[in-house]
């Protein structure tokens, strides 16, 4: 069995771990680590009968994810304090938002960088406040810096000099060069306040952002994790108003594909109108599940195709050619 499909099967039906062989267990953990899903896997299967060695891995992963959650919420608090003097909403995105909102199906999720969304006209103040509070630039390259500022949906990443944690400050959820232009003002206007004054996206927008991130941007690396987020969010929030909201942001196609892929991989329950399978879906499915028993990514040709697609989504052809030429001269090669 393809080890990525094995992981998907265990996530959707945890009791299917019964009867796994030692090589199955090894492949399962390797893929889960490769996809940043080890904590999620651990939470899904905790408490079920399993070999002692697997139980130890479950305990380690749960402890590790719990520490990650604490650290992520602390990082959000640090950002809140740094930005308290700025008169603009600060919206938590992705993993930190799920943790802050206490979305239980996403327990165990690895939380990487802190991602926040702020109004574009406040971004200079936000940048200044973060720099004053100890965050520093990570990308000293002038081309990258200029590229971010002119064309991206976020500031160049900042890293905190003491805590070594990164923050991505967004003003919208897709690059400015992409054909799709989500309604950033609506994302902010409909965001929901948390008790501490930080905000999270509305339910539908949380799903729109996850779908945009996975299917309208990027090369689907680590896509199983992002698709698991979508699966859980759909289970928690349902489909009410989702099609309309996604269409409003220009993300109807991405949202429908996200649902179809989640149905296929994780057995998400979806109304019939959301189901089906288009011509390109099999290719997306192949890309999402490209892992070997060591957790290493496989299907290099499919990967390269999606790498090129990610760039084609991001910018028009002439600009893309210039960008790739500049990056290539600087020594960058696709992984």
């Amino acid at each position, binding site marked *: 069995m393809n080890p990525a499909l094995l992981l998907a099967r265990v996530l959707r039906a945890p009791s299917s771990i019964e009867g796994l062989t030692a090589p199955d267990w090894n492949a399962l953990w390797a893929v889960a680590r490769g996809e940043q899903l080890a904590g999620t896997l651990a939470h899904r299967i905790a408490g079920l009968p399993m070999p002692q060695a697997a139980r130890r891995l479950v305990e380690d992963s749960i402890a590790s994810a719990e520490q990650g959650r604490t650290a992520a919420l602390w990082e959000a608090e640090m950002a809140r304090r740094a930005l308290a003097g700025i008169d603009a909403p600060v919206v938590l995105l992705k993993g930190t938002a799920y943790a802050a909102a206490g979305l239980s199906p996403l327990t165990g999720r690895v939380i990487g960088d802190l991602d926040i969304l702020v109004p574009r006209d406040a971004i200079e103040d936000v940048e200044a406040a973060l720099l004053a509070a100890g965050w520093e630039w990570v990308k000293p390259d002038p081309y990258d810096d200029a590229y971010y500022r002119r064309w991206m949906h976020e500031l160049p990443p900042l890293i905190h000099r003491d805590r070594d944690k990164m923050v991505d400050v967004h003003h919208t959820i897709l690059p400015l060069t992409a054909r799709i232009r989500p309604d950033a003002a609506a994302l902010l206007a409909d965001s929901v306040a948390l008790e501490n004054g930080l905000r999270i996206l509305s339910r539908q927008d949380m799903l729109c952002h996850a779908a945009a991130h996975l299917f309208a941007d990027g090369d689907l690396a680590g896509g199983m994790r992002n698709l698991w987020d979508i699966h859980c969010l759909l289970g928690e929030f349902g489909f009410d108003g989702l099609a309309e909201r996604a269409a409003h942001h220009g993300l109807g196609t991405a949202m429908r594909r996200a649902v179809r892929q989640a149905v296929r991989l994780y057995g998400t329950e979806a109304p019939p109108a959301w189901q089906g399978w288009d011509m390109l879906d099999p290719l997306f499915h192949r890309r999402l599940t490209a892992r070997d028993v*060591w957790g290493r990514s496989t299907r290099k040709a499919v990967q390269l195709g999606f790498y090129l697609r990610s760039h084609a989504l991001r910018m028009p052809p002439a600009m893309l050619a210039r960008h790739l030429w500049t990056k290539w001269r600087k020594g960058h090669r696709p992984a």
Partner: protein
Amino acid sequence: MRHLKLLRIGPLGFRIGSHWRGPIAALDDLYRDYPAPLDGIADFNVHLFAARPWRRVLRPSVHIAGDFVIPDAAPLPLAQGLLAAEMGMNLQVALGLRRYLLLHAAMVERGGRAVLMTGISGAGKSTLAALLMARGWRLMGDEFALIDCATGLAYAFPRLVSLKNEAIDVVAQALPQARFGPLLEGTPKGAIRHLVPDARAIAAMEQPAEPSLILFPRFGFEPAERPVLPSEAFVRLTQASTNYVTLAERGFEALTRLVQAVPSRAIDYPDAATALAMVEALA
């Protein structure tokens, strides 16, 4: 990956895959008396691979990776494949271990009491551990000491002892009957030869011991000895731990308990004989 080795060192299980037979054959030989991982399920995976298919045969160069990665780990020539496997295992433990507080230290045990020896590379940790093993101590490890955060007990990690440069002959003379790996010359750390821990170290590798002494040895100085305050030991051990920060509160509690319960000493020594006498007098 065509070639596979499963093995257990102390409480940790490894699954090592390689594009080449050489590194796996060396592990099969040197780790022949080590058990398989508990239940056959590994805690860590190590990959030894060629970055491009033709580099498997043409000037083969061994890249090292695993579940936990750091950018740009330098590859090694295939002749040093055993070293690549050892580095791969160390790296996975250093980056991924969450079950124990990991201290970069050699450790030996006698009568249920463990002596930890920590210091920078070149302080003589591996040499002292091997020579103490020759004098009847149980070798618990020459690189990592694993501290159980809940109980404070020290767990062994008796991997192959990595001897460098002058230490190779010194230890070969003290342990004429011991098994050694091939002499690897021209590695990033000079000449390296691996020593297989003795049968007792392997047989007892799952038995923890109570830490009883922490030593900070320094090689190349006139003999000297001074007590180290818990506060200083704490700071130096945070620097000697790869997972103190990620373990957060658990790590802090384990480490404060260790430095408060166990005395620490700094020892300077000019040669191995002096060091052995100093360690045995203190322990």
